[in-house]
């Protein structure tokens, strides 16, 4: 029995050490890489490794969040942000020695600060020397809140203020993105939009909230814009009529079966 416990603890330690060393390797790869696309993908891999570490440490809720947010959503959002910029990092022309000295100084201070922290599972850690709070949550949270999952009862009930603050932070992030980037779609002159139409200079199609009314109405959005002359096609008139006829009969069902009809890139 003791042997089995020891060996499983050893395997757990080895797994955690391996995954932690993965994290270090990935971090140096992200710093070293000039290709931002690869860096974003590596950030997703980093989050997945971190989630695996949390699973090994029995923190399933945290692992769930890390995998969903870190590896899933933030990778997609970073890729979206990358589509607004260049894929290559700009080469650094000048070297700033003051900056590197400050960074190294701050980094070594932070590492020095971690030396005082107790080790993982240490008997002198605050959680183990003052176990009253943990005991309260473990033994009485189900009786007090009626919820078997201690993490949920702590997050939602005992520490409801914190979670309210977190929700407000998420909300603020979206407000900031809307204020900085917004929901406008801007095409440059001569650029093809998603309907295969070339855009005029004087009347850029903007998918703002006013235009959303048009989008909601039916599938004929692009035809509407063609009619009021704000966009012109690169195809001749006969083709336009044919496209318009196709558009009239196109529903979402037939789009999947016959996507060629919807686009107008077929001639």
């Amino acid at each position: 029995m003791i042997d089995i416990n020891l060996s499983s603890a050893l395997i757990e330690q080895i797994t955690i050490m391996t995954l932690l060393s993965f994290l270090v390797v990935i971090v140096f790869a992200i710093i070293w890489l000039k290709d931002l696309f690869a860096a974003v993908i590596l950030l997703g891999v980093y989050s997945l490794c971190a989630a695996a570490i949390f699973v090994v440490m029995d923190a399933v809720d945290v692992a769930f969040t890390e995998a969903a947010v870190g590896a899933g959503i933030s990778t997609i959002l970073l890729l979206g942000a990358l589509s607004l910029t260049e894929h290559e990092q700009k080469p650094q022309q000048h070297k700033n020695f003051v900056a590197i000295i400050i960074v190294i100084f701050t980094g070594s201070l932070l590492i020095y600060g971690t030396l005082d922290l107790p080790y993982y599972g240490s008997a002198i850690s605050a959680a183990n020397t003052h176990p009253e709070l943990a005991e309260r949550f473990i033994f009485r949270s189900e009786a007090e809140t009626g919820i078997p999952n201690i993490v949920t009862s702590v997050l939602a009930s005992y520490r409801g203020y914190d979670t309210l603050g977190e929700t407000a932070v998420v909300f603020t992030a979206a407000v900031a993105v809307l204020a900085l980037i917004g929901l406008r779609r801007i095409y440059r002159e001569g650029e093809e939009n998603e309907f295969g139409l070339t855009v005029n200079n004087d009347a850029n199609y903007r998918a703002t909230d006013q235009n959303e009314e048009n989008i909601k109405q039916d599938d004929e959005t692009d035809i509407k814009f063609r009619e009021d002359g704000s966009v012109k096609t690169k195809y001749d008139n006969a083709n336009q009529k044919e496209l318009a006829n196709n558009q009239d009969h196109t529903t979402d069902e037939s789009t999947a079966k016959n996507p060629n009809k919807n686009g107008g890139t077929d001639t």
Partner: protein
Amino acid sequence: MMQKHQQRHEVLQVISKLLIPFILLFALYVQFHGDFGPGGGFQAGVIFASAFILHGLIFGVTKTRKVLPAQALKTGMALGVLLYAGTGVASLFLGGNFLDYSVLAHDPLHGQHWGIFTIELGVGLTVTCVMIIMFYSFSLRVR
């Protein structure tokens, strides 16, 4: 999403059409089963949003915006925070402290249950709407 790209993605379109209902169902499971297993509003919101983001990636954001207009998302993300804070204010008016759910029902355990259910719903709503609207605003910009 350019239209000519979508023509190439026929297999992905069919597969994602099959997957999206199950992603939504799993998100609802994570949301409402978070009291008993791992999960909760935050994770459920992210999973729920990922279904719509998958739809946007495969079928084009214009189509997704017809399903879920940005105005609804703006309303939803504010409504989630209001639902959370409103639960706290409701418990304040019923004689308890802010976010003290025990006073929400006659039985304190039921009150806790209802309070946690409501605030998890608020968190899930806000996170879903925020993730989708951030995806909209990043993907709608053409350089």
